[in-house]
């Protein structure tokens, strides 16, 4: 079976498969865990899955440097997202003394 051997040898389909599995595990973490910090880690995993797919396509489409430039901007936005998101988590904990998303279900105190 050519698809399986291509995946095992590290062909494009192998990278796309790894990116897909990483995305699904991240999605599962966001959907099934209650701690907002674990959900944040799941979002980071999904972002990394997108990065893997992007750079794999950049490589197999002839080493396009635009993919790397795009990856640089994604990393800059991810750093912003991490700092602001963790600031929001700290603010949430100050108001409710909990990082459980089920307990943060009302806008007022």
């Amino acid at each position, binding site marked *: 079976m050519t698809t399986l051997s291509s995946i095992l040898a590290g062909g494009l389909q192998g990278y796309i498969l*790894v990116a897909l599995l990483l995305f699904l595990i991240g999605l599962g973490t966001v959907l099934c865990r209650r701690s907002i910090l674990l959900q944040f880690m799941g979002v980071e995993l999904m972002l990394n899955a997108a990065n893997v797919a992007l750079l794999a396509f950049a490589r197999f489409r002839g080493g396009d440097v635009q993919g790397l430039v795009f990856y640089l901007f994604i990393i800059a936005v991810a750093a912003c997202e991490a700092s602001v998101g963790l600031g929001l988590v*700290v603010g949430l904990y100050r108001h409710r003394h909990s990082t459980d998303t089920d307990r943060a279900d009302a806008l007022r105190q």
Partner: protein
Amino acid sequence: MFLIFALITLAGAVALALQRNLVVAGLCLVLSFTGVAGLFLLLANPVAAALQIIVYSGAIVVLLLFVIMLLNEHQEEAAVQARPLQRWVSVAVILALGAGVLKLVAGSPLLRRLDAAPLPAVLTLGSLGDALFSEHLLAFEVAGLLLLAAMVSAVALVKRDL
């Protein structure tokens, strides 16, 4: 090599999804990000691998671990109420999505054609700099401004009285 790094990445991610202790989950995230950096090396992209190590497994995870230790909440709290329906629906959605995309990936003739193309040389920092400062200068400056705005807003969010 590809299999080793792919397994490191996926094992770190699975351990993160199943982990009870938040600090250990953060360390599993480092493992997963390091595996992704190895995959980038195999994609002949050392610049992206170095950035991955520095920004993701360095800066972002350190910030995350600081917040986890600052909040003093190392375990997930007990559930207010069990939500079995939501849990099963989310598992079903993930499985359906996975099966659909897997069928697309395995059956795509375009992916197989791209796979057969000759592989290019290693991407260097020089070519990245050329593309960044000749074609994307405005976007580069906007990204710098965005980082500054994020820094100021993070300080404003956590400061008690401005």
